[in-house]
């Protein structure tokens, strides 16, 4: 950029520059010259009248000398700092003197500061951009036009997704395009991630929804089987001691406080998961992230078909009667579709109990991003070796489906062993 000589002085000659007459003055116009070449001036003399666009102001010079040349005619607007006249010692004008004012800044293409910043970041020279904005101003779109034209991805129409739901869908591998609108929340994503059969909404009204839900489940379970190298272990557990203890326990409490064996299995599972934390958590971004406490997903079968998987926060920390109360509460509310958001929070481990339906064991499919699923079959009396004798005992087959990326078989075996030991000492589950 062109600028007058520093300080406006050169040898015995000083440029008289367009002064800045106020904080907001960037340019000015000479309205009148009060001196002419040959006039002797002193520091502080008023030499011209300048229009600042706010007012006509007398301006003074800051040197003693003789006016050698008037550089700027009356009426021309120039930036602050432009030489207006040369004041010298009266000698002839030196050849180097500036003879013609130039604009202090070259005209710049019209563009707003954000567009300038954008262009700068994108490495686009604004001088090369054709402006289509008001008064030929360059808009952001004009800059984008210069950049490699990119097909814009169409916005999904109709359905609105909460930001949190969008994030969760990414984490849980749920394809939002398959879910019905008009608004999707986190609970919809959780439901899609864990519900094999959609049962909250009447089938007749939502055949399409169910259809798409089915597809979502298909996608999720396919992803599980495609991505998760499952390994399976099982153990048969003698529940004689546990059930006898439970019988005694129930004799000591009122009907409404009685506890069913499932509560015992849930609490034992939660405690075992706490002892073997490598199975409790999520596989995210290529690494195992242990759960912050045990949040147990509980598969609840629904009367109208299908199932829900509400989350129980840390049942291992609850007293057995509280586990029971939570269990009946959650089951009841799951079946009336009134689960709380906390109960739809992501679980760290899921338990499925298909014993009610008579199945002897479950070889489950893990819900991503969890790394294990614990299954219980029916509790049934079967022949069982006790010591060296054959007895008839209530047995249950507990299975573990686990993610081989996150753990090895020995870990899984330790988990099942821990589960067995917990159930052999039921008083510890109180």
């Amino acid at each position, binding site marked *: 950029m062109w600028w007058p000589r520093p300080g406006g002085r050169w040898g015995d000659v000083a440029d008289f520059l367009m002064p800045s007459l106020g904080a907001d003055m960037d340019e000015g116009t000479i309205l009148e010259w009060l001196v002419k070449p040959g006039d002797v001036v002193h520091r502080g003399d008023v030499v011209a009248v300048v229009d600042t666009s706010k007012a006509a102001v007398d301006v003074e010079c800051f040197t003693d000398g003789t006016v050698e040349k008037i550089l700027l005619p009356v009426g021309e607007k120039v930036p602050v700092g432009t030489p207006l006249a040369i004041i010298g010692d009266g000698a002839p004008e030196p050849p180097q003197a500036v003879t013609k004012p130039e604009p202090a800044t070259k005209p710049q293409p019209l563009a707003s500061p954000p567009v300038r910043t954008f262009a700068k970041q994108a490495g686009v020279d604004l001088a090369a951009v054709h402006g289509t904005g008001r008064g030929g101003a360059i808009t952001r779109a004009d800059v984008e036009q210069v950049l490699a034209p990119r097909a814009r991805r169409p916005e999904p129409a109709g359905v609105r997704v909460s930001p949190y*739901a969008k994030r969760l869908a990414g984490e849980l591998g749920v394809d939002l395009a398959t879910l019905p609108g008009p608004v999707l929340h986190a609970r919809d994503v959780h439901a899609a991630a864990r519900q094999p059969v959609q049962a909250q909404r009447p089938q007749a009204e939502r055949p399409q929804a169910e259809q798409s839900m089915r597809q979502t489940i298909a996608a999720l379970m396919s992803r599980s089987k495609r991505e998760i190298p499952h390994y399976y272990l099982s153990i048969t557990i003698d529940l004689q001691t546990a059930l006898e203890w439970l019988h005694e326990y129930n004799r000591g409490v009122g009907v409404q406080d009685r506890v069913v064996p499932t509560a015992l299995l849930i609490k034992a599972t939660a405690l075992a998961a706490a002892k073997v934390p490598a199975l409790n958590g999520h596989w995210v971004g290529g690494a195992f992230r242990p759960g912050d406490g045990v949040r147990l997903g509980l598969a609840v079968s629904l009367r109208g078909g299908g199932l829900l998987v509400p989350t129980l926060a840390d049942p291992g920390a609850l007293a057995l009667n509280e586990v029971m109360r939570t269990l009946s509460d959650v089951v009841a509310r799951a079946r009336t579709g009134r689960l709380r*958001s906390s109960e739809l929070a992501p679980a760290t481990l899921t338990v499925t109990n298909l014993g009610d339906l008579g199945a002897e064991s479950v070889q489950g499919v893990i819900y991503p991003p969890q790394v294990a699923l614990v299954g219980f079959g029916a509790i049934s009396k079967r022949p069982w070796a006790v010591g060296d004798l054959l007895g008839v005992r209530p047995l249950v087959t507990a299975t573990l489906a686990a993610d081989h990326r996150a753990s090895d078989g020995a870990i899984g075996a330790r988990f099942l062993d821990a589960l067995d030991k917990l159930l052999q000492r039921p008083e510890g589950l109180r």
Partner: protein
Amino acid sequence: MTITYREALREALREALTEDERVFLMGEDVGAYGGCFGVSLGLLEEFGPERIRDTPLSESAFVGAGIGAALGGMRPIVEIMTVNFSLLALDQIINNAATLRHMSGGQLGVPLVIRMTTGAGRQLAAQHSHSLEGWYAHIPGLRIIAPATIEDARGMLWTALEDPDPVLLFEHGSLYNVPGELAADAAAVDIDRAAIRRAGGDVTLVGYGGTLRTALTAADELAADGVEAEVVDLRTLRPLDEDTVLDSVRRTHRLVIVDEGWRTGSLSAEIAARAAEAALYELDAPIERVCTAEVPIPYAKQLEDAALPQAADVVAAARRAVG
């Protein structure tokens, strides 16, 4: 022991006057009258007219004199009767108290505490019902605090007096008579952090000062309906403890802000903006705001009630958020 919010404030004043001889109280009717709201009752008799100074009705002069006295080495507590009258001292608060440290390149500090009553709800009509604390919270150089509990009423003043910068302490007019339990050894509390006054996982309700009670009442109602609300008391409006608010949002994924200021350009707008800036991908529902209707506060009770954030409004907003 059980004491009122008013008594807790008075205890705090008494302690400050006893512990630090640089401390004095100055304002309209703080002495002979005992304070417009009775906060300083009895202090004139106890500490004398040098330290409990009744001023003329000259808000700009006595607030500015508080600033000058702070520059001169004292630790003044200036009482402005109500926030509405603080507008007469706005020049001093904003042009002087908030700027002197910066304008002087860090040479000067203004260790001053300005107390004032804020808020509506007592049928005092448009000129005695403002909630302008959010407005003051706009100003860098000031610290804005709003004790909502007995413990904070007792404990915030001393910490504010120890602050090397000007602190504005807002007392909601509806709280003075509220009784509460205070430990016999209650002492100074921090004035940096927001507090979780009730834990819950379904929705975050943010309130402060007078709206904390509104939020807590709403949380009780929601709980009866199976919705567990977490209630955050901001306590300090500037600088905002953004972390506590946003951590709660990260747990509940839903945010309802209760603010007795008007919605437009309000503290609630600030909190909502910060949640959107820093926790957008935690939000599972649009942010809800329960603010005062955009109208000067009317006198008639049913109109005033309708203008102000009520627990029922908060419950409705929380239900919308929870879905």
